[in-house]
């Protein structure tokens, strides 16, 4: 066989490339360093450094009259954070984030379930893009659309009125705590928009988790005598849980930090994001804003730790 007849020696690979390559082969650590140093400089130094700088600022205080920041370390700002009005904000935000998360799961699950376990071929693609497109389309546009929908003179009102159900809406809006003059100035309105805007973040991880559940597990459950309902409770839900947790990282985190939605739709009551934004931007009280910012960091930090243990991390 002519091609294989003689075994020639390899051509020597000289030059800078060859020598660099030899070095990397002999010292894999150098290769790793080359790969890691730039991103670590960026994320580890710039980003983490900034987070640290923020943390530092929360130990500064502000001169209440002139608004000038006093850079001597103090816990005064944290004392301020614990004032009832601010605790209200934290509590209100966490409650909203939790409610939004629960509602997102409820709305997302059927969509994710159908897309993962029933849709095939074209329908699957349709569902996938059907979730992706709203996920990626402009956040502001979506919020804005809801302003139009929820306004007193907007579509929801129009819809209820033209169906002759105006009274129902009014009765709902009269409920204290969740109602208001119109949906757009009620906590319910804020809640609906949050759910809407973060919904795709919940659908996709649940769908991914459900897709990893082999059909055979569902069949095995039926084979062992479980009705479809029992199969859902004992097999599908537990296996979808990591996806749910991954999704809730987003819904929770995004709700904790958002300041645009409560500003445009809601009762003017502050949420953490809005408080951070206003203390920092409007009031120039950077130390208090920083202290407020520590709240979501702590909440999300613990959340991530739990999520990691539940194996939800790969689903991010």
């Amino acid at each position, binding site marked *: 066989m002519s091609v294989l007849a003689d075994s020639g020696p390899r051509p020597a690979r000289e030059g800078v490339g060859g020598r660099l390559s030899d070095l990397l082969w002999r010292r894999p650590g150098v290769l790793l360093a080359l790969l890691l140093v730039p991103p670590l400089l960026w994320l580890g130094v710039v980003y983490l450094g900034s987070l640290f700088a923020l943390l530092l600022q929360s130990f500064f205080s502000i001169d209440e009259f002139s608004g000038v920041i006093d850079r001597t370390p103090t816990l005064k700002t944290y004392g301020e954070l614990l004032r009832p009005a601010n605790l209200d904000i934290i509590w209100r935000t966490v409650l909203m984030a939790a409610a939004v998360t629960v509602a997102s799961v409820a709305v997302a699950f059927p969509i994710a379930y159908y897309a993962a376990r029933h849709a095939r071929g074209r329908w699957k693609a349709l569902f996938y893009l059907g979730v992706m497109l709203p996920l990626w389309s402009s956040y502001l546009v979506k919020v804005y659309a809801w302003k139009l929908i929820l306004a007193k003179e907007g579509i929801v009102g129009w819809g209820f009125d033209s169906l002759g159900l105006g009274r129902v809406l009014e009765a709902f809006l009269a409920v204290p705590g969740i109602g208001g003059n119109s949906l757009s100035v009620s906590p319910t309105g804020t809640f609906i928009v949050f759910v809407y805007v973060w919904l795709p973040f919940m659908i996709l991880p649940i769908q991914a988790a459900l897709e990893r559940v082999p059909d*055979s597990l569902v069949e095995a459950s039926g084979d062992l005598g479980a009705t479809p309902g029992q199969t859902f409770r004992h*097999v599908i839900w537990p296996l979808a849980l990591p996806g749910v947790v991954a999704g809730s990282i987003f819904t929770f985190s995004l709700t904790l930090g958002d300041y645009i939605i409560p500003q445009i739709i809601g009762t003017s009551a502050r949420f953490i994001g809005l408080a951070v934004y206003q203390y920092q931007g409007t009031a120039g009280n950077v130390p208090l804003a920083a202290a407020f910012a520590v709240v979501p960091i702590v909440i999300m930090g613990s959340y991530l730790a739990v999520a990691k243990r539940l194996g939800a991390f790969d689903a991010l």
Partner: protein
Amino acid sequence: MTAAVSFRGVSRHFGTVKAVDGVDLDIAEGEFFAMLGPSGSGKTTCLRLIAGFETPTAGRIELFGEDVSGRPPYRRAVNTVFQDYALFPHLNVLDNVAYGLMIAGVPKAERRRRAEEALSMMALPGYGGRKPSELSGGQRQRVALARALVNRPRVLLLDEPLGALDLKLREQMQDELKTLQRKVGITFVFVTHDQGEALSMADRVAVFNEGRIQQVGSPEEVYARPRTRFVADFVGGSNVLHPGVAALFGGRPAWASLRPEALRLGPPEGARITGVVTAARYLGAATRLVVDLGAGAPPDGRSDVAVLVPGGHPVPAPGTRVGLAWDAEALHPMATE
């Protein structure tokens, strides 16, 4: 006695694909029944029809004499061991095994006891606390078995349960399964595409091809007296002789099978048939030679036969001309197709 499983003209078509096509079949109670066939021949679909994961497009399936049309899987006294075991990854071994009992509402203490009993029977005592991911393939297989058997099904379905195991473990599990079936005495329906597995384990074997059953019979029948070329070819090992070659060997001019171990080597002088050794494959216990019969063979048939030389006998080197001897009754003529 009513059959445990009986198919009457059962078909399952998927669009134009005839996965199962007019199958008639009776599996007796207590039988170890194997379904053997190449990939895509409809074995799994048959099993899924019995379990209730599929509904026939035509025909009728009975379990113990009762028509089970329209009965969902969770209302059939049948359990399945899945090819990938389908163990619930979020439950530990004990909860996996107890799953069916939990669903059936058996009280916690009792189902624990029974699940542990099933695990001991499978030689897995003390493994209850592990997660399936912490088990080896063979252990998983045994958990899947325990999970199915603890429900005391009347029929156990097994879809290539040994396919994922490596050779050693596979042989060991074959023995265990066989022993187990004797012990529990219920009907096992076993799907495989490995003819060795089917032959060594089953009481009866059904050979599938393209959604139809080609032959049903004992392993010896299927191996030694294949009804069709397909069966002879697939069950394997055998030389399938072209009618012309069969005639050379003294048979009727029809397709025939002749087992390699039935051929004996001798000196070429005076032999009825001679040939040249073209390849040798050392198998340890024996060596399998390929002997080319040369000019004597008809143009459209294979002109070589395999000969098995038992270990300890001398093995001629490739290129050697040898003579062949055999007993007339070893030649088995079969239905043409």
